[in-house]
Every structure is written in structure tokens, then in C-alpha cells.
């Protein structure tokens, strides 16, 4: 795949169809893959990477990149296309300035899960018939492929690209995923249990802002948490702000806009399952206001910017579920 992508990118650069390519390159470690912009065939040859660790969603980078001179080539996985569409809808990216090549998505690997098996010094991986062969400085190790995949890929919602200019590989379908199972499990706990669960999780937050920085829906010119006029400015962990405000406000800000790409949880160094907050909103929106998938299109009204005269009352929260 990587080979084909590089070739296609080189071709598009050569044709003058695009003048830059956004892809990924390797960081310090084999599993440390970050988005990068390439301008020449040489750079591509040398550094472009697309492998089982390439999970990062490049859509957000296009907010800036698509506003520059010329057209940029972006390789988007199915989940990334939803983010891209949502950004188009919100006028955050300039669609005309991006040439989108849809590429097959995950499942992608979670290095943490491999490390959790006691495997360290990872140099590279190979997926052979769903057995993961891990090349390490200490020799080859193996583990079942599916035990090493990212949580967000385990609950993948769609393998279909909702926007692209061309596709590489086969197009997939929207999946009937089990992504709300964990939300449901929490809903069925008692209020005290839920409180304990979340207090336990959210108190781990160190306010590194990785969730915010990676989130393709968080593209505000100036974040409310950095803005003294917003009334909720808070730049560092000082009190119980993270438990009581930060994550709730953040989730609410992206409610109806979050495409459920799962990046927030993927990048959280404290492994807080932040995506569950977003999914709770998605689940509520689906059940109360009709199925809605942010990013599925570029025209529909976001559920929070819409209403029906016969919407349920807020008291529905009191009437249902476990106390």
C-alpha cells in the first residue's frame, strides 16, 4: 500500500495536480508515526510511511494547509473522511484545495497493547494471517493481531469513504458497530458507580491538552479555555476544573459535530476513555432526535443547531435509566 501511495503521490506532484502531499512519517520509534507534509518526490521516497501504526487523522492539519497556495494531496482513511466532511461543512477547510485519495483504513495497532504484553524495543511489525510478528531489538515476538489493535478500531463505525476524489483499494461499507456497548454499560450502573468511575478517570487528567489538540472538531481560532473573556479560561490544572468542567465543556462543544474518530482517547497519555463522553452525546442524539452521523455529508443541520416542535422535554433524563 505504502508503495502505491508514494507512486500515486509522485505522479500527482509531477502532473502539477498538487504541490504538496500530506501523509505521515516516522518519529523516534517504529510505532511513533506522525502527520507530515511532503513537497518533493525525494522527500516522499525517503520518509513517507503508511503502515499498521499509521492511525493519525490528518484532516485537522488541512484547516491550515488547505488555505495555502496550491492544491494539497491528502490520503484519508474512511474515518478521516468524516472529519474532513465535517470541517468542510463548517467552512474550516477549503475543499477545492485538497485532492483526496481515499485509502483503506484500519484496524491499526496500539503500541501500548503490545508493550503491555511485555514486548519492548519494537522495530517493526508484520501481520501474517492475523498473527502479529513483532521484530524487536531482542528478536521476534508474536501475539494475536486483534489483541493489539486500537480500541477505536475495535469499534469501527464505517469503512466507507464519505468524500474523495479517487479511491485506492476497495471501498467498504458503513458498519453495524457495537460502539455504544460501553456507554450502555455505564448507563446501567447506579449514579454513584458512574460518579466513581468518572471521578477515577477524570482525576487522572494532567491537562496536557493532547485530546484537544488532536481533535478534528476542535479547530477554534481561539479555544475558550485560553480566552480570558470566555469566563472559563483555565490553562493549567489548578483545582477540580478537569473533573467538573473541562471535559464536560469540551464534549459539549463538539456534541453534534464529533464524528467519533476516537483520536482523543488514542492520544490520551493517561488512557482516559474520553471518547465515551462523545459517544454518550452521539447515542443520545441518535435516540432522541433521530440517527445523525456528523461528517456523513456537508449540508445537514447539526442536531444542536436544529429542533423539532415535538422534541422530548429535558425531563426525559429523569424519566429513564438507572438512578
Amino acid at each position, binding site marked *: 500500500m505504502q508503495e502505491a501511495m508514494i507512486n500515486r503521490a509522485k505522479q500527482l506532484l509531477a502532473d502539477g495536480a498538487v504541490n504538496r502531499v500530506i501523509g505521515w512519517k516516522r518519529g523516534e520509534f517504529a510505532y511513533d508515526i506522525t502527520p507530515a507534509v511532503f513537497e518533493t518526490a525525494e522527500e516522499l521516497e525517503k520518509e513517507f510511511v503508511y503502515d499498521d501504526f499509521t492511525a493519525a487523522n490528518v484532516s485537522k492539519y488541512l484547516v491550515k494547509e488547505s488555505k495555502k497556495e496550491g492544491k494539497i494531496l491528502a490520503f484519508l482513511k474512511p474515518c478521516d473522511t468524516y472529519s474532513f466532511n465535517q470541517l468542510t461543512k463548517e467552512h474550516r477547510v477549503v475543499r477545492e484545495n485538497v485532492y483526496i485519495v481515499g485509502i483503506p483504513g484500519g484496524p491499526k495497532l496500539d503500541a501500548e497493547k503490545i508493550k503491555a504484553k511485555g514486548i519492548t524495543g519494537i522495530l517493526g511489525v508484520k501481520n501474517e494471517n492475523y498473527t502479529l510478528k513483532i521484530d524487536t531489538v531482542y528478536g521476534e515476538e508474536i501475539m494475536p493481531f486483534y489483541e493489539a489493535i486500537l480500541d477505536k478500531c475495535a469499534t469501527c463505525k464505517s469503512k466507507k469513504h464519505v468524500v474523495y476524489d479517487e479511491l485506492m483499494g476497495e471501498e467498504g461499507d458503513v458498519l453495524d458497530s457495537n460502539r455504544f456497548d460501553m456507554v450502555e454499560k455505564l448507563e446501567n450502573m447506579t449514579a454513584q458507580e458512574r460518579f466513581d468511575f468518572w471521578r477515577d478517570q477524570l482525576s487522572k487528567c494532567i491537562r496536557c491538552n493532547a485530546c484537544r489538540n488532536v481533535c478534528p472538531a476542535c479547530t477554534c481560532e*481561539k479555544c475558550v479555555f485560553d480566552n480570558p473573556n470566555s469566563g472559563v479560561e483555565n490553562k493549567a490544572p489548578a483545582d477540580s476544573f478537569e473533573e467538573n468542567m473541562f471535559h464536560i465543556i469540551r464534549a459539549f462543544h463538539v456534541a453534534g459535530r464529533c464524528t467519533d474518530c476516537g483520536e482523543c482517547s488514542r492520544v490520551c497519555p493517561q488512557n482516559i476513555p474520553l471518547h465515551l463522553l462523545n459517544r454518550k452525546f452521539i447515542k443520545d442524539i441518535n435516540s432522541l432526535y433521530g440517527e445523525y452521523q456528523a461528517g456523513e455529508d456537508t449540508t445537514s443541520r447539526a442536531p444542536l443547531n436544529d429542533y423539532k416542535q415535538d422534541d422530548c422535554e429535558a425531563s426525559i433524563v429523569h424519566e429513564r435509566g438507572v438512578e
Partner: protein
Amino acid sequence: MQRIGVFVCHCGTNIAATVDVKSVAEALGHEPGVVISQDYQYMCSESGQNLVKNAIKEHNLTGVVVCSCSPRMHENTFRKAAAAAGLNPYLVEIANIREQCSWIHKDIASATEKAIILGKAAVAKVHLNAPLTAGESPVAKRALVIGGGIAGIQTALDIAEAGFEVDIVEKNPTIGGKMAQIDKTFPTLDCAACILTPKMVEASQNEKITIHSFSEVTDVKGFVGNFTVTIKKKARFVDETKCTGCGLCTEKCPMKKVPNEFNMGLDNRTAIYIPFAQAVPKVATIDPNFCMMMKTGKCGVCSKVCSVGAIDYKQEDRFIEQKYGAIVVATGFNPIKLDKYDEFAYNQCPDVVTSLELERLMNAAGPNGGTLLRPSDKTHPHKIVFVQCVGSRCDDSKGKPYCSKICCMYTAKHAMLIREKYPDTEVYVFYIDVRTPGKNFDEFYRRAVEQYNVHYIKGMVGKVTPRSDGKIDVQASDLLANEQLHIDADMVVLAAAIEPDKTARPLATMLTTQMDTNDFFTEAHPKLRPVESATAGIFLSGACQGPKDIPETVAQASAAAAKAIGLLVKDSITCNPCVAHSDELMCNGCSSCEKVCPYGAITYIDKEFKMPDRTIAVRRVASVNPAVCQGCGACTVACPSGAMDLNGFSNNQIMAEVDAICK
């Protein structure tokens, strides 16, 4: 440094009896920034106000908090007082310690404590108040009336009377609307044409009124006082300025088999036509769907006979753009199509007609010259059955859920007129309820029964079967007699429900006004603002807002005119300064605010920004039109970045109140 004055009102004993006003003044005097804190018997009195004014001047106050009755009572009083003393009126905040404190609590200690907290919240808020200036926006001294029926004509005449220019846009070749098709009017039975046509002429002769007939509104931009409207003048293939309306062309036109819309298709007209004798403007129009010249290129008779050379087969649609200060919607109504109600055999039998068709059949200018004859065989009907509520009050997919309001009265009128003119004709009216609220209305209906012997039967027709002998078998229930009747009728008249004109919905979108599920325009307030739409500068006239008879329509038309005049007399309009504004530096241009704005007050512009790295970036940012914004604040919450804020109720101000209360 803020210098805030606090003024605590006793309101006689209204406040002082349950709130220890002295301790309130004392406590608030210690709040940061407060330089003077006083109490007084009646703050709203002349001397109370002077107290405030003097303190403003003396202490050079930057903010005023009055602890008194509800701001809904006296906020304006104290704002004016502040303004008189040279302080921006929006630097005044009221703490409501009467309605929301002294009047509801009995315990002095807790009431006083609460009054202090409410005062502190007001002080905290006023710290963040900014001086606001109500903006002004100029008013274009011209009104647009959309629709040239009786509603539109009346509105236009009233506005013109007040001295303002008015344009009427009418989609048909002539103004007059439905009323022009009506024969007589209830409850007086005077002839509709006799009272309408003089008004039509008056409209056409009034210097202030311009009639754009055969035209449509295609675009509306702008806001109250400042609308820019594009009007399409559809090609009528006759030069309006040349045509004298002599009618020779319509006599000579060889294509004589075009269904005549004005007579509800009950007779034919020519391809070039003037809808009716009193049409305004009295100008011919060519119907390109039937004109031989337009279809085959052979004919040209009209062009040959026209002595002024008005015929122009190559005419094209023209677009004109005009500025208006106010827009009045008067798009009217139509009877619904009865395709789905063929149990009444409307599609099977020409002698089953709608009430509007009956109007034409009875009209002196109608297809039969005013003699009531059956459409099928032109014989005189001896037994006529009227069916009420056809498609009204329905809870099915075929009809309308509302009462069409006018049918009971016009049916009584028809019944009475027929009995008057043709005493040998028996008239049956099947009704569910007879609804006659209106001056002299019930008396009118009773006259139909008592004086004219119209048979009113409580029940409904269930099946109509036309027969080859020309009779129509009407099967119906008579609920009071508990019988099923079969009447051998000669004609059946259906009181079809009325619905808003189909052009109304796209128009509402252009005007950013609201409609209900039935496509009637929604008034700004159902009781108190019945002729205004919720969008400033857009007014509603006639049946486009709901079913109405002629007197009601005219009353509403004049009311809408009065509202429009009230706007047009102003050189500029003062805007509520408590409106939303967007911080361009923070705005993402995401359109969330625009989506929730009920007034269309938000637009987007591409703006250049100097970036820290000295490059220039073009960003899409929201811009609020302060003349259109009503200050609800929906956008402020929809805005993800917090760029949108509301003057007078800013995020910081409300948070400060929250903090003060929760301390």
C-alpha cells in the same frame, strides 16, 4: 477604576417591611468599587431620581445599581435618569428586591440576606457593563406589497395615502385577486365588483402606487428599513406602455379555445387576452402555450390589428431591482384541489362544482351572463345541494386540519341568492356546524333559513352518483332525523377548503419569515402583534396569515399598512443595542450561529487578517447586522469558540452574577 453607586428603594413599605433596607445599603457599600450606597423612600419618584442624578455627577459614577422593583417596571426610568445625568443608560443595573424578594418572603433575616445577594450580583454585573449606543439605520421611504388582491390593494392605498411610494407586485396579468371573481359579498349582498373595481382604479391612478402586474419577487436581500428586492416582470409579449386595452386583438385572435382561468375554466378565452373587462392594468397578455404565432410562427393576427404596435412576440422576462423600507405580504389563498374527494364526483360530473365556480356561474360577467345554468346542459337547476367542510377540519392526508372560516357564510349567501332569484329552486345545505361569528353574520344565516327557506340539514354527504337522466343522486345522512337521505339534485356545490397560495412558501424563505405547517405566515405574536411577522419590517396582510373574509382582510390590510407607515415615517430606526456581536479574531466562520438565528441577522464575509508572522490570511467571519438582531442570544451558545457574545448579557456578566450569587 470603577465608581459605582448603589441605591436601595424602600418602595414605601413594599420593600422596607420585609427587607432591612439600611443593612442592604450598608452591606453593598462594602462591595468593591462601590463609592456610594444610599437608601430612599421612593427611588422612582422625582426626588429619588434626582438622588441618582446628583450622585452620578457628584461622584462621577461609572455604574449605577438600583435595588428596587422589577426591571420590567422601572429599568427605563432609571436609564433615562442616568442618561440625563450624562451616564450611559446601559451602565444601570436593577436588582429586583420587590417582586422577587420582599413580596414573596416573610422572614426579614432571610429576605434581607437574599436582597444583599441580589444586590451583589447586580454590582458584579455592572462592573462589566459597557456603555452601549443604540445604532441607527436609515429607512428607505418606499414599501413593497406582494400580492394585488383586496388585501394588497387596501394596504397599498393606505400607505400611498400617507404619502409614501408603494409598489404592488402581482403574479397575474391583473390585480383584483379572488374578490374580482366573487359575485356578491356577505352579509350585505352588495356586488363585489362594484366595491372592488373602484379601488383597483384608484390604485392604478394613484401617483404613489406602481403596479407590477404579471410579475414575481425573485430575491430579497437586506433588513428592516433597507430591503433590496428583485422583481421579475414576466414577458407578456405586449408592450404595456403602448397597449391601450382596446381589445381588438382579443376579438380577432383565431385561437379561441383556451380555458378561461378567470371563469374557473367554465368557458374559453383567446390566446391573447385581457382577463376581464375591468382588469387593471387593462393590457393584453399573450399566452405563449396557445398562441399560434409563438408555437408555429404562423398567424400574427394580433400584431396586424394592433394600431399602436404593442405586440412584441420577442419580449423577454425583465428584472428590476428596487429598495424598500417595508414589505407587506398579501399573497392570499386558493381553494384546494378536489381530486382526492371523488366520492362527491367532482371529476365525473360537470354539474358538481366548487363554490368559487358557482360564483362565476352566477356572475353577470360569468360564462352564462349571470343566469344560473348547469354547466352540463345549460338548463336551469331546480334542486341544489351544498356540501360544507369539503377538505376542511380534516385529520386525514387529503384535507386541511383547520376551519376555512368563510364557507359557512358564503354558502348561506349562495343559498339565499339562489332562493331569491329562483324561488322554484330548492336548496339543501349539509353542515357539520354552522359557524357564524361576526357582525350580522348569524342574523344573515338565520335569514337564509327563516326567510328564504333554505333546508339546512345537520349531516354530511357520503356519496354522489351522477345519473344518465341528468339527475345527481346525493346520498347523505340527516343526523337529527336519524335517516339516510337520497336527494335527486340537479347541481352539487362543494365548499372546498382554502389554502395559502403556493407562492407563499418560497417567498417566506426569501423573506426569512416563519410559516406554520399549513403554510400560513406566522404572526409575531398571536394576540398582540397580529399583522407583523417575527422578522422586522415584514408585515402580513389578508389570508396569507390565516383564513379570512373580506372585512377582516381589509381590516388587517389597513392595520398592516399602519404598521408599515409607522416604520416608513422614521428617517432612521433606533436599534436595540443589546445585540450579538462577533469577535472576528476568534470567529471560526463555521456557520453555527447563522443556523440558529431566527432573523437571518448573521452573514459571513471574507476578511483579511494580519497574522503574527506578518503574512495575510483571509478568513471567513460572521458579521451581525445590529439592525436585524433582536438579541435573543441563541448564537452565543451555538458558537463553539465563544466569539459570539451578547451586549448587556455577556458571558462574563452572567458568570459574574453566578459567582456573586454562589459566593
